[in-house]
């Protein structure tokens, strides 16, 4: 059941391309084709404009909040080939770092899990993926994966830093071996998994199932169960759920969530990783949940923000 509790009028002058809440759910960042990034304070249902960040010369495609333990940091990527990292100091937001290493529009940014430090993955239309790491006070290291996707990378998403299976079998006292992994989707219709080995990033897996541009990928947050799950959506209207059961992470099986009639732009996992929000063409946002027998059912159709609650129960799936 979905009910609108707040409507934030952003007063952007052009199409909004992304809206993200921070870790605690108190601040909302939005970005738009009008080249600005706006930050609102949305505690208790209100909306107060905290900052209007200008710095991009083209439409801003995506924003991403870093983990609060590093402070209030926001990254934004834009058509003007720049990635800007903003930081709040003493109540004012300022540019902390500007990355211009891409040759074409940067389509997606995603912060890695906080255990890995302050590391940002950026996917661009020139086909490369950059990893921008903060290695200390104002020092930033860049690692670039060239030609990750031939005609452009549309989305990047990090794997959670929880070792799969840690909820069930407790590793006895030894420090868990974190391997940095992320997934990317591109215009070559592929979903690729990347792993860092000895400081170098290597392509780990190539998942083929889509017949058109992969618009978005999302790695589900983990609560320690031994499965890893990735969602990918594409221009061809299909959303696939990829699951991997073995801890080494080598065999991924695809399951078609649904074939929509229009392009699917965005997939987003809930904080506990069990509900998937799918945003498709014609302003449709639907929520999907996996039932106990492994079938995905649409639990709600968020009807254009009017708060209409048309629950689409699949057969007799009882949520209780």
């Amino acid at each position: 059941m979905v009910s609108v509790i707040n409507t934030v009028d952003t007063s952007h002058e052009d199409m909004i391309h992304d809206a993200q809440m921070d870790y605690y759910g108190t601040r909302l960042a939005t970005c738009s084709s009008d080249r600005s990034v706006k930050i609102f304070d949305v505690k208790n249902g209100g909306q107060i404009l905290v900052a209007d960040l200008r710095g991009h010369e083209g439409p801003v495609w995506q924003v991403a909040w870093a983990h609060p333990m590093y402070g209030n940091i926001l990254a934004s990527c834009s058509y003007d080939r720049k990635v800007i990292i903003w930081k709040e100091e003493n109540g004012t937001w300022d540019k902390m770092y500007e990355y211009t290493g891409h040759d074409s529009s940067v389509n997606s940014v995603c912060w890695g899990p906080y255990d890995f430090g302050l590391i940002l993955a950026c996917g661009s239309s020139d086909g490369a993926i950059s990893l921008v790491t903060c290695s200390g006070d104002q020092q930033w290291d860049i690692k670039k994966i060239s030609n990750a996707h031939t005609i452009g990378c549309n989305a990047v998403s990090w794997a959670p830093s929880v070792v799969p299976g840690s909820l069930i079998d407790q590793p006895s006292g030894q420090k868990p071996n974190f391997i940095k992994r992320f997934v990317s989707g591109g215009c070559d219709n592929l979903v690729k998994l990347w792993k860092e080995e000895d400081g170098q990033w290597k392509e780990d897996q190539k998942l083929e199932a889509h017949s058109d541009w992969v618009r978005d990928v999302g790695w589900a947050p983990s609560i320690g169960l031994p499965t890893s799950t990735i969602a990918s959506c594409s221009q061809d209207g299909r959303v696939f759920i990829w699951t991997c059961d073995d801890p080494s992470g080598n065999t991924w099986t695809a399951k078609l969530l649904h074939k929509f009639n229009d392009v699917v732009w965005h997939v987003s996992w809930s904080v506990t990783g069990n509900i998937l929000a799918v945003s498709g063409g014609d302003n449709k946002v639907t929520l999907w949940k996996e039932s106990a027998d492994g079938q995905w059912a649409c639990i709600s159709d968020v009807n254009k923000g009017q708060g209409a609650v048309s629950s689409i129960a699949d057969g007799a799936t009882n949520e209780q």
Partner: protein
Amino acid sequence: MRLKEIQRTAHPAWSPAPHHPICLALGTSAQQLDASFNTTAALEIFQVDFADPSLDMKLKGSLPTSNRLHSLVWVNFGAGEDGLGGRLIGGSDNGTVTVYSPEAIVTSGEEAIIGQSDKHTGPVRALDFNPFQSNLLASGANDSEIYIWDLNNFSNPMTPGTKSQPPEDISVVSWNRQVQHILASANPSGKAVVWDLRKNEPIIKISDHSNRMHCSGMLWHPEVATQLVLASEDDRMPVIQMWDLRFATSPLKVLENHTRGLLSIAWSQADPELLLSSAKDNRILCWNPNTGEVIYELPTTNQWCFDIQWCPRNPALLSAASFDGWISVYSVMGGSLEAQQQSRADQISSSFDTMDPFGTGQVLPPLQVPQATPQTTLVAPLKKPPKWVRRPVGASFAFGGKLITFESPKAPVQSPQPVPVPRQVFVSQVTTETELLQRSRELQAALQSGSLSDYCQAKIHKAPTDSEQDIWKFLLVNFEDEARVKFLRLLGFSKVDLERKISTCLGKNLQPNGHGVDANDLAEKIQLLSTQRSEESGDAVDSTKTPGSSSPSDFFSQIPPQPQDKEKISFQIPVSADADGLISQALLVGNFEGAVDLCLSDGRYAEAILLAISGGQELLQKTQQTYLDKQRNSISMLISSVVTQNWGDMVQSCDLDNWKEALAALLTYAHPKQFAHLCGKNTRMLRIVTKESVNPDLLLP
């Protein structure tokens, strides 16, 4: 950014949008000869594979054709969901319109030519398929011939109406993208005729009377049904004219940038703000037809490009065929040319002597034509991102089950003034376990208001099972006064009932205890009871340990030492209606009197006395009295006197012969104050009894 290229003098045709993977069909073009003066003709299908970073395309199938083609289209007719399908229709030099099956070409299996017709009399230069009905195809040739073909019934084409006079070549035909029965045709003299197929006659003729323009391209607007563009090949007027049929006397807009005549135009179906044009000034420009400005210029070689087309499936790609025999696939999304420059350089240097110091991996200009402008490594993308990149809708989750959604509101298209559109972001709360939330909300409300008993009452009513109901009843009682009594009652132990039971058992009419049970009192009594019980069991344990000589101890010592938790062995509390049960019930309720009475009536004197100790002094004395009354043996009188400290009675009632013993008892136990009095009593009694045999010496002061 150039992605792929191939050396052919051919007309390209993209595979239709639903077709995957993307393929490019090339049919050898007429009116052009390559350097080898080759006159063979073939229809080839290439797969455009982007996982491969090289510039080459993979050849999938080839079919030699008898004629060279003037035009080629790939129609999505008769295609399955995936795999090669559709129909390739080629208009050839001698007027033949041939329908090929791409699938057959690729698999080189059965007959690839599906249909052929010779209806046209001259070279078929114009071909276009209907976007709504994929079986309809229009072709235009010399002599103002326009035929509408139905791919289902290929042998009999229709005409859209009477031929326009004077008979001229038809250079372009184009179906309207919004209305399916409108077709437009243009001829090189600059006249464009719009036909309505329902009425089967031309409805409007557009011609620019002021200038003579040689119409080389004509396209309808992808979204606005009444607008179309005409491209002029004339070097004196190298413009694109935008016409709106609502005011068909002069062009709406004229796009001028080319310096020489235009050869071909292509309008992106994905984003109507992208219009490509290629001209004889060697440039390919991308326009925004709404604003009329050039937004992009493709970096190309110095050659005329006679055919450009957008890829239907991947909206960022376009194909460009140029007169130097190269067909290239470009992307408008920008990118780096480094990889391709390297391969180009490699190709060039490999065909030369490696001793050549200039051919060592440097970028060399192609040797055929001197290159004026050096190729920059960075290709700038379009100034404004195309429509297919801009994400209109999205949703993301946030902490606490919140969902943020945004959408692009549909702005009214035809509004004359721009209406400020509210750009809103919706924050929603997602709850999946609604019942659970409801319950927690109720609980929270109850906790805040303090009306917990009401809450419990409500729960009792709603409880689905009996056990749940009981649970809630217990909780309810907790919040009420006299909780413990009610608890007991819930458990099934009612004091009143029990007393009734006891009285019936004993046969006496007992008065029910008036006073309620004081919890503290009760607790103390129970405590006492339990300590005594543990003492008793402790004694038993001790006795087992003492290596005694007496027989009970012997017996016990033969038992192997019991584990320390002997007293923790679970015992059953009988609650039956017999004496045991009643006693225990009475004890559970705290009715010591009743329990004692039951014990006494049952003959269990030891238990009676034990319980009476806990029941208070009064009860103890009463019990003692009762017990002693019941017992009638020789020493019972003495015992009773000792216990009850009642010497007066004893003195009076004991046998006179035992006056010594009575005196002894008095000496031992009597209180000093009472002593004298009791002694006096003693002697008086004696004197009464033995008047004569009294020994005055015994008279004590």
